[in-house]
């Protein structure tokens, strides 16, 4: 549990991310220096409150997975800080990280490749206890049974191999494994994207139940804004390494302010033929490469409203209304007037 001082210091946040960057070196010159960098995550700041689900949505290559991997420190940040329960984990060395590893856990997209098919389901779930030396065999067995129960798997399935499970069940094993060490924050990276629709709902409902039961906070990553909206209290929209807009779910869906969010909303297929559009009002062309991202606003090459300032200055993410932040020069004037 969180002590009282950290509580005040963190203002009720479980994680505070500030100025986070990750540049991946691409190619090498003859002298061994990187030729280029992929600006996967570029100056991203956000916080997640205790018990909150923050949704992170964006198209492929926008940097969502990289943010997740940075938070669980599978990647080292190029710059920035990540305060988990008040402590900066961005610079910790492997050994120093150990106490935090249990606190933040990741659930991955592909339940097929993220679990070793030659391991029994029970062993997969007990592995974290063994690695972190938590409890003796009897205690571990008991904990594993509890976790199986919590994620809706049957006790008899403990001795089955993971390849004998369906996609949805494998995702449950992945979730049980992530829950083993009593995490406070779960990074769920496209946890239902590989699943069939009828099974998606089972897993989404399970995550919601577990959130209440275990008092979890979530960073819920997905490319599908309908799925993200369904599970998230707040949503952050990402494009080419940067956050474009952050707002509470209902507000964001009803009143998207950033031109990119607007186009996402115009593009998303709505399962209601009565709302069919003659033509989708979406930007033409494709997402540019993160290796040489556009100057100024990353979205300007596809933005229908772009003007000269957009190429020159990077728009900062800032609140234009209470709890509604946007990174777009269209709002500069509004801000100055206010």
């Amino acid at each position, binding site marked *: 549990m969180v002590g009282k001082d950290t509580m005040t210091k963190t203002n009720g946040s479980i994680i505070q991310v500030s100025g986070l960057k990750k540049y991946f070196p691409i190619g090498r010159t003859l002298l061994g220096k990187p030729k280029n960098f992929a600006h996967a995550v570029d100056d991203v700041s956000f916080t997640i409150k205790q018990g909150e689900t923050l949704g992170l949505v964006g*198209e*492929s290559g926008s940097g969502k997975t990289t943010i997740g991997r940075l938070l669980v420190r599978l990647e080292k940040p190029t710059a920035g800080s990540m305060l988990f329960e008040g402590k900066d984990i961005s610079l910790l060395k492997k050994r120093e990280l150990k106490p935090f590893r249990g606190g933040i856990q990741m659930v991955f997209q592909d339940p097929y490749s993220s679990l070793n098919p030659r391991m029994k389901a029970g062993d997969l779930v007990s592995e974290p206890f063994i690695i972190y030396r938590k409890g003796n065999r009897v205690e571990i067995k008991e904990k594993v049974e509890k976790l199986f129960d919590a994620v809706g798997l049957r006790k008899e399935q403990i001795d089955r191999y993971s390849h004998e499970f*369906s996609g*949805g069940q494998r995702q449950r094993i992945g979730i049980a494994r992530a829950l083993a060490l009593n995490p406070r924050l779960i990074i769920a990276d496209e946890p239902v994207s590989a699943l*069939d*629709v*009828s*099974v*998606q*709902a*089972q897993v*989404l*409902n399970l995550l*919601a139940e577990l959130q209440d039961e275990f008092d979890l906070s979530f960073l819920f990553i997905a*490319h*599908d*804004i*309908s*799925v993200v*909206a*369904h*599970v998230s209290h707040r949503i952050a929209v990402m494009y080419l390494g940067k956050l474009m807009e952050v707002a509470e*779910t*209902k507000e964001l*869906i*009803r009143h998207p*302010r950033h031109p990119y969010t*607007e*186009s*996402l*909303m*115009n*593009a*998303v*297929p*709505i*399962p*209601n*033929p*009565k*709302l*069919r*559009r*003659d*033509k*989708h*009002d*979406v*930007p*033409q062309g*494709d*997402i540019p490469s993160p290796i040489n991202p556009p100057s100024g606003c990353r979205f300007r090459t596809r933005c229908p*409203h772009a*003007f000269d300032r957009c190429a020159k200055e990077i728009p900062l993410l800032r609140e234009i209304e209470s709890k509604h932040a946007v990174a777009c020069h*269209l*709002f*500069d*004037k*509004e801000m100055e007037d206010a």
Partner: protein
Amino acid sequence: MGKPEKKGRALTTVVASNPTNIETLLRVENLDILFGTAKQHVVAVDGVSFKINTGETLAIVGESGCGKTVTSLSIMGLIPCPPGIIDNGSIQFNGKDLLHLKMEEMRKVRGNDIAMIFQEPMTSLNPVLTVGLQMSEAMMAHKGISRKEARKRAIEMLKLVQIPEPEKRMEQYPHQLSGGMRQRVMIGTALSCEPKILIADEPTTALDVTVQAQILDLMNDIKAKLDTSILFITHDLGVVAEIADRVLVMYAGRTIEEALVTELYENPIHPYTEGLLRAIPRLDQYLSADNSVKEALKQMPGIVPSIYKKIEGCSFAPRCPYARKQCGQERPVMKEVVPGHRAACWKPEW
């Protein structure tokens, strides 16, 4: 500079095509497709029947493994035999049964009358040929036109599929194009021989949503311009609502419901369709209702049955909240429940 007024969403009501001039182009009847040997096999497609009318978009929707791709490959004569066995059924097109055509005749149908595009364009684009060459070769082979003419037409097709700078693209190789561009090239190539039917198997599944929206617009556009019928295959009920005139729902190798698109979404008859529609998170609840409360998704229990098991009654019975004894014993067949709306379910009869 102020923010421009937010544009209203341009909404149109879907109008059913005029019933007086509907003509059936293709008719699939009682199709059974197995994989394996006559003795030991799995049933991938089990008694599937449907038709495609002129100028319409028919969507086949269903979860992975339900037999969508196998069904469409059989129309193209592309089921690998062995291990595939077309055990029963007919596919009528232009007065011919495609299942009984000679290879040479089928090849002609494939090039000229029915064309297909896939989820991953790279599987059907030749990586060592420029865009221009692969498009013109296809036309030279099928239409017997000269290289020069084919090239001219290829450029026209690239314009039709709204590729900027088509002359420049003609000289590029598939890997130099983005996913969305490749899918456009595929569509252009498929349409270059003016097929009567375009089969599109999950053509937007691998694309980002803004690019998916572009491709859906393009396909709607082309259908209107060329009057091509489209068989659109997808697992996504959102996409179906955006593109289909009529919908066929498949489950575990069988067709379980068929209706015009608005009718299907408003009045689903089969419990599986009903369950699917309730299981998807939807944004329209935020957009329409003033006071939308987030409802838990209605989850469907269980999983799709294994095709290794023979199913006696209704294949959905183990997961169906309404199932009675009859459902586990007798197989329901597709029956018209409401005019133009068919379902394979016992419930309407109780």
